[in-house]
Structures are given as C-alpha cells and as structure tokens.
C-alpha cells in the first residue's frame, strides 16, 4: 500500500503565484497560436504545455509516496491459573451428575485446558505468545507440561497483586486469561480505586455460586486470654448457603470433652446467625477449644465446619489456702494482709478446736464446720496456687496420705509455705512426713519451739537481692528497714537450711543466727519456711512504734507472689513475643535470666525450644544480648499454627528456672474460611479492564475466537513497515516532462511553426 504525500517546503502563496503566472502564459500562448493555427491544434499545443506546467507546479509541492507493509504478530497472552487452597473445593453441588461432586475447581480448569483432541493449552500456545503462571499468595511461572501436576496449595489468593505482576511481565500489547473462583484475600483496593486496568483481562469463573452449598463458622470472636473461674464468651457466626429449612447442630468442645451444643434452624438460602457459647475455665494454662458442625449431606466444603482456638487461661487471683492450727495473731494479721490484696483469693481453715477440747453445747450451737479433708486434698488442691501451713500440725486431723497430696501439689508447680509455731516443723511431726523432703529446711525430730527470747531478723546476702525481702527498691534503705523491724519472740529450731536463707534470727541480730526465712524449690513448685509465728509483730508492733505496717504487708504479698511463680518473680522470663507473624517471617525471641539473688545472670546457659503446631520440637540457638542477663534468638516458622517457646536456664550447673509462652503464626488471610465463588468480582475486573467475563460452563470452541476478535478490535497485533519515495527526484517524472515537451516540439515542427 502506497500513499501520496507532499512535503511542501515552498509556501503555498508562492506556488499559487507561479500557477497564476503559468496560466497567464498559457492563455497568451493559446491566443498567439490561434492566429497561426486552427483552434484544435492550438488547444493541443496549449494542453501539452499546460501539462508540463502542471507537472512543474506539482514538483514545487515536493510530492512523495509512502509505502506501507503490515505484518501480523502473535499477541502475548498471560494465562493465570488460581492454585490457592480454595481451588481444591468441589466445583459444584450437583450430586445428580455422577462424579461432579468430587471434582475440584482446579481439576475442572485442568480438564478445560488439557483435554480433547486439540487441547486448549495447545491452541493458546499456537495462537499466542503464551506465558503460563500459577498464583496463590504469589505469582510463579509454570511450564505447560507440568500443568497436570498443579495442586491447590496456595495459602492465600493475592489476586490483584498477581494480575499486576503478570501485566508488567506481559507488556502493553498483551492480554490476560485467568481461571479463578474469584476468592481474593489480598489487597482489593486497586480494583475499586482504579478506573481501568492496563491490559484486557478475560476471567474464566470457576465454581458455581448459585448452587453453592456450604455451612461455615465465621467471624469468631474469642478472647486470647481468660481468667480462671471467670466466664468467657465465644461468639461466632454460622453462615449457611443452600440449606433452607434444615436444622444444624453446633458443638462446643474443650479438647475431647463436649461443653455445650445447640441446634439452629436455617430459614433461608443465604443464612447468617450469630451464636454465643460460654464456658468457665477452671484450670490455668493454654486450653484448646473446638467449635464444629457435622458435614451436612450435599455440603461442598468440610474444612470450614470446624474452628479450633486456644485460650490462655490465667489466674485473675492467686488462690491461697491457709491451714491454721489455732486462732492466733499471726493468722489475724496474715489474713488482713491477704484479704487486703485484691489479687489474692483466700480460703482459710482455722482449727478453732482440737480433738481434746470439750464443748458444753451441742454441735448445732457451734459455728464449726467439718474440715473437708477429702474434698480439699483429693479434689480441690489443684485449684489452689499456694498452701500455707500456719502453725499447723496434721497429726490430729489426717494421716500422711493427704500430705503426699500436698507434696505432689508442690512437685507439680504449687507453692507451699510452712510458718512456725508450736505445731510446725519438728513440733508438728513433719520430720517423719512426706513434706520432709519438700520444705526447704532439714528437720531431725528434735527441733524445739523457743519462746520468750527477743530475736532480731538479719538480712543475709541472698536476702538483700531477693524479691521477697526487697521491701524498698534502694538496697541501703532496704537494709535499714529490716534493721528497724520489731523483735520476734519465737523461733522453731531446725537442723539447717536446704534452700536459700534470706533472713536469720539471733539475739543481737549479728550474723550467724538461726535460719528464720528460707526459700527453696521442689519439683516445679516453690517452698518457703518461716521459723516463727511472730510475724504479726512486724505489723502491729511496728504500728505501735509509729512505723508503717507496710513492710509486713509487703513481705506477705511478695512471698505469695514468689510462691505462686508470678512472672515478675521468675528467674527465667520470656519477654513478650510480637503479635502474630506469618510463616516465613522471622520471630524475635528474648529471654531475661536472673540469678538466685535476682541479679542479671550474664553467663547462663539458656536453652530455647520451640514446639510447633503438631508438637514437633525445634531447637533454637540463643545469644547474649546487649543488656546483661538478656538473651535473644530468632526463629522462622514455616507453617501456620500455634507455637510454644520453652526456655530453660542454668548457671554453673544449677537450674535457674523455666518459662514458656505461646505465640501464633498465621497468614493474614483465611483461605479456607469462605469457599463461596465470587463471580461478581471477576465480572467487575473484566468490565474495568475492557476484557470479558466468561463462566467456565460457557466456554466452548468459539470462545477463543471471540476473545481474539475482541482483542483485535481493541488493538490489532501487527507490525507496519513504511518507506518514503520522493517523486521530484524520480527519472520517470523528468522523462515525462521531456516527452511532453518533445511531442510539443514535434507537433510545432509538423504544423510549420518551427
């Protein structure tokens, strides 16, 4: 194809003047010839000259020719295949069609692409510059021969991110053909905000939204933490599609135990109802709960019928059980200290009467209640955090079998405090009891209970740093406070301390006194021995001396917290782990380690272990951090789920303690939660990108031709080559002028003008 064009370097008015001049010359020539020749011969000669003039004016316009050649190209086409987990859901609910129920959405896509005599994938490869990608949480190229092996494993569907990336790789002449169910849980703002899409997108919608049947548990609202003994509410939505008129049971389990169940009746096809279950956790620690709905006949997706979650149950209060051998001032002021502390829940038993005491009235006139030995020691003990034996001897009330329960309670993590008095330690018969190995002091059955001698408490070196005896933050002020503590008058003798002695007692407060306050560990639990029942004097006598009772109250409360292993009183403390991270992202772990005297442990051996969602242990190496006593580690989880970090520290072979903390790893999207196909999203995408929405059921042999036609109508895929030919420099045109002039000359000569 050639097109004429004019370069036109001479102004048009100049050409017009020349043309007018030439026209005048021709007119004069015609009139002159007419006098000598006949009119036809004059006209012929004038015409020939006029043609020459016209050609000259034509050349003044600098004429040229453009030659174009068009070559058709193969258009780039990105074929995007959704391989997210939702593509593993069944394609439809039509169980009437044999086999269709079991076929996944991705299976259907593969069938469309690969089956038949002339598979679609081959046609596409022939007609287009085909680039095949799979996408889920990310976009990845796929070879055409590996399409049969594709599996729906993507943890999310970052649909628009994948489209954007594919568009960049395809180029402006390309188009995108995408097979997807339309579930997108990445960013979706770009579709809403942008007026158009850079490339035409032809979404092929997989999955039947009209006949979709599913029941799912959605929008679960449950606290991450709960307090023992306080009700927690589990609020969630039940969404049902295609089950109008059916009654659906919902089960709420803790572990394997059914806690509650409920039936709800679905009253319409697209049904949503919020449901609330409640439970009151009785034990502390991480507890697993499950909500479930049995798979209903005809239901397409089973994965979202169950929701599992964990609740970290903490104690809102430290539950303390006190057993007091008799009413006493020690009990009175101990009770006052514990009762005034809102974080302590106290259950106390005071033995108002011994078996040798006689009463002068019937039992019905006494307020005494039976001591619930079996209930307390065999059933309820585990619900307490601390047992305080306050001047209490078991001998008159129960046998050592129950003390074995107390020993087991401490071994399993409970706290035990034995306070002195005439019924405690050796005087209470504990040297031959199962608690002998538990309490942090050694007894030989001969230790006596001394009274009447004034004794002053003295802080030991460990006592100066220990959180129990740290009454004031400043070390010197703390020592001064202890020096001012009122004198004691009673002391239980022991053989020696087995744990850390924080206070000693002597007549003059000099070092080398008898152990007064000793702490230790037994199994997972902590123990405390206070070899006096005069602790109340640190309260009330101090008040009489115009001092504050706070030191006594603080000592009691700090002891209780230490025994209950409150995190701030732990020697190994896992620092808070950041909010949930995704698989593949690094998780920063930090542990603080303190020595027995609660100063930072700089050279401790810290062992970290992460327990994965399926219970698999993963060792993690730790390194000392900049801060003394701090240790850090990094861990990169590979899959979603609940992880538990366990930390244990030793210093010079001595165990300092352990700590554990749970953290959750999850993608920010829930691919399996809602399997409803979203054709409306794909329609919108097609509309905005000037592509075309195609339900997979409508795909036939002509669909590809329609797509090609639409693409060509929008922007043909071809290369146009063009070449310019300048006519004024052409020999043919010059020859034509010469020929015309020669003919004119020949005619003039013939007709006798030359």
């Amino acid at each position, binding site marked *: 194809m050639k097109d004429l064009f004019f370069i036109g370097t001479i102004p048009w008015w100049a050409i017009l003047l020349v043309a007018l001049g030439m026209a005048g010359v021709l007119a004069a020539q015609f009139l002159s010839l007419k006098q000598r020749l006949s009119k036809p011969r004059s006209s012929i000669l004038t015409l020939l000259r006029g043609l020459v003039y016209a050609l000259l004016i034509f050349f003044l316009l600098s004429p040229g020719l453009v030659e174009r050649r068009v070559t058709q190209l193969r258009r780039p086409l990105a074929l995007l295949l959704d391989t997210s987990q939702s593509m593993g859901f069944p394609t439809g609910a039509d169980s009437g069609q044999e086999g269709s129920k079991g076929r996944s959405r991705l299976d259907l896509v593969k069938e469309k692409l690969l089956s038949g005599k002339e598979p679609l994938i081959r046609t596409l490869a022939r007609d287009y510059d085909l680039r095949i990608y799979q996408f889920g949480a990310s976009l990845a190229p796929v070879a055409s021969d590996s399409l049969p092996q594709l599996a729906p494993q993507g943890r999310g569907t970052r649909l628009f991110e994948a489209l954007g990336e594919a568009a960049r790789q395809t180029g402006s002449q390309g188009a995108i053909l995408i097979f997807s169910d339309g579930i997108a849980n990445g960013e979706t703002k770009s579709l809403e905000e942008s007026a158009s899409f850079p490339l035409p997108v032809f979404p092929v919608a997989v999955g039947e939204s009209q006949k979709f049947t599913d029941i799912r548990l959605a929008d679960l609202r449950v606290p991450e933490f709960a307090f023992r003994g306080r009700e927690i509410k589990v609020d969630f939505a039940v969404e049902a599609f295609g089950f109008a008129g059916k009654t659906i049971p919902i089960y709420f389990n803790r572990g394997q135990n059914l806690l509650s169940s409920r039936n709800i009746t679905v009253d319409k096809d697209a049904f949503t109802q919020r449901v609330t279950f409640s439970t009151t956790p009785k034990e502390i620690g991480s507890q697993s709960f499950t909500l479930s709905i049995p798979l209903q006949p005809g239901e397409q997706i089973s994965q979202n019928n169950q929701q599992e979650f964990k609740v970290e149950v903490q104690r809102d209060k430290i539950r303390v059980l006190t057993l007091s*051998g*008799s*009413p*006493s*001032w020690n*009990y*009175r*002021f101990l*009770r*006052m200290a514990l*009762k005034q502390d809102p974080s302590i829940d*106290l*259950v*106390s*038993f*005071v*033995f*108002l*009467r*011994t078996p*040798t*005491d*006689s*009463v*002068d*009235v019937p039992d*019905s*006139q*006494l*307020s*005494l*209640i*039976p001591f619930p030995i079996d209930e307390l020691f065999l059933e309820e003990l585990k619900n307490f955090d601390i047992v305080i034996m306050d001047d209490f001897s078991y001998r008159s009330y129960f046998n050592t079998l129950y003390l074995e329960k107390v020993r087991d309670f401490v071994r399993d993590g409970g706290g035990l405090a034995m306070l002195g*008095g*005439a019924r405690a330690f050796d005087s209470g018969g504990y040297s031959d009891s199962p608690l002998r190995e538990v309490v942090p002091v050694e007894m030989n059955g001969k230790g006596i*209970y001394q*009274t*009447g001698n004034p004794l002053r408490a003295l802080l030991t070196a460990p006592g100066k740093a220990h959180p129990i005896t740290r009454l004031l933050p400043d070390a010197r002020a703390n020592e001064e406070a202890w020096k001012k503590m009122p004198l004691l008058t*009673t002391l239980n003798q022991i053989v020696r301390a087995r744990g850390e002695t924080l206070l000693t007692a002597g007549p003059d407060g000099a070092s080398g006194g008898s152990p007064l306050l000793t702490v230790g560990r037994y199994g997972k639990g902590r123990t405390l021995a206070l070899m006096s029942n005069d602790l*109340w*004097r640190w*309260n*009330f*006598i101090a*008040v*009489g*001396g*115009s001092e504050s*009772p706070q030191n006594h109250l603080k000592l009691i409360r700090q002891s209780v917290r230490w025994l209950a292993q409150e995190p701030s009183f732990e020697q190994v403390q896992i620092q808070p782990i950041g909010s949930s991270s995704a698989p593949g992202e690094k998780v920063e772990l930090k542990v603080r380690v303190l020595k027995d005297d609660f100063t930072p442990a700089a050279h401790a051996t810290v062992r970290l272990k992460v327990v994965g969602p399926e219970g698999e242990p993963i060792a993690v190496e730790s390194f000392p951090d900049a801060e003394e006593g701090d240790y850090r580690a990094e861990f990169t989880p590979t899959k979603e789920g609940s992880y538990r970090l366990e930390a244990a520290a030793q210093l010079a072979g001595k165990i300092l303690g352990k700590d554990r903390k749970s953290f959750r790893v999850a993608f920010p999207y829930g691919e399996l939660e809602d399997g409803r196909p979203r054709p409306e999203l794909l329609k919108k995408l097609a509309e905005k990108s000037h592509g075309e929405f195609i339900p997979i059921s409508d795909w036939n042999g002509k669909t590809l031709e329609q797509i090609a036609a639409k693409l060509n109508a929008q922007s043909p895929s071809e290369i146009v080559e063009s070449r310019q030919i300048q006519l004024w420099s052409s020999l043919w045109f010059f020859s034509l002028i010469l020929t015309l002039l020669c003919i004119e000359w020949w005619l003039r000569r013939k007709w006798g003008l030359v």
Partner: protein
Amino acid sequence: MNRRSFLRILSYSLLTGSGLLAKKLAAADEPEKARPIQFVFAQIRYRGGDWNPHPLATTPLMEELMLRTSVEAATGRQEIDLRNPNLFSFPFLYMAGKYDFEPFTKEEIEILRRFLSYGGFLLADDALGQPGYGFDKSFRQEMKKIFPDKEFTRLPSGHAALRSYYLLRRIGGTRMVHPYLEGINLGNTTPVVYCQNDLGGAWERDQLGNWVNPCTPGGDEQRRDAFHLGINLILYAMTENYKEDLIHVPFIRRRLTR
C-alpha cells in the same frame, strides 16, 4: 500445783465428770513459760473511776477459753495503761468500769485510735449497767473523741462476732441491760465492741471456785452465755470476720434454720 488449783480442777472434774477437762486444766496450770502462749487478756488501767470492778474475772474466762478452743492463753491478765510501750504486744484489750473516769489525754486518744485502726480490738464492759451514767457516759465520750465521725451501732444478729465459735442468740452478763451488743465499725471490721450487761461480773469466780456475782434473771444459763460471748469475742479478735468466709456460710445457715 497449789491447793487452789487442785480444788478448781477437782471441782470441774466433779461437775463435768470428765477426765479430759481435768487434763486440760492441768495443762493450763503448767508454768506459762513452759507452754506457748497465743493469747493474753490485757485490761486497760485508766485514771479515775473504777478500772478494775472484777479482779477475778479473767482466769475463769481464760480457763474456759482453753477448755473449749484450741487457743493457748495466759491464765492471768495483763494490766496495762494506754501509754505503755508494750501496749501493741496485746492486740486484745479489755476495758471495764463502773463510774465516770478521767478523760484520756490527747496522746492516749491518738494511741488508741492507732491501735484500733490497724488491727487491735477493744472489748468494753459496763459493770454498772446504767445507760447515760458512770462508765457508760465516760466511755462513749472518749470513743467519740477517738472516732469523731463514727457512732455506736447495734451488732446485727448475724455479725461474725456472734458466730466466731458459738452461734449466739443471746447476750449474757450479770444483768440484762441490753439484749444486744454495740460496736464501732471500721470498714468490714468491728474493732470496738461494747457490752452493758457486766460480762466481767458473770465471769468472776473467787479463789474457792464460787461465782462472785449472781446473774439475773437468767442464772447459770445467762452466765454461760457470758462465757460464750467472751470466747466468741476473743476468737473474733483473732480471726477477724473469718466466719463470714463463703465456705462457712451454708453450714452456719443450715444450723441456724434447724
């Protein structure tokens, strides 16, 4: 064991026919240094009036206390005035009297306010039994100085002091001036309990074991109520409102409704 002790033990044994009682009382008669003492009955010695209307009241009550409960007590009383530096070694104070007494000094008022505000307990006992006169008048005036914004109120029948050991339905004493106790409440506790029925008179027994004062109109039953009340108040002081703990409530309610 002296003659007086022997006679007392013998009389108890004969009265109750119980060897156990004899054993208990014998234990109580051990030298006090040889056994741990958890409770000392301290009586306030004040100026003016009659601070000591019943000098022999303490021992019978202490013996009864040790006989019936697990509390180990000193059999004798500790006489103490409010300015004694050892006052706070005795968180239970007993104050009795018949007549007007000299007002407390500012220092004494401050000491007693501090004593009662931080866990101490005061049992006041009007031996005269004339409301608005004598001890009653003076005591109320002094307590008003100690707690200006507090008033005496009747202890309700379900008060922990009336359930701390015995489930008391009556108030004893040598006379029945009021069938109720009064008290001053601070928060959840009642650190001051006031009785106008002359409890000390009902507790008092001479060296031969004879009751010094008759109890009218109820006689021995009224005296027994006085002892029960004394024991309850001591246990209340030592256990605070322990009997209001939830674990006790259903038992006590069941017994009271029988």
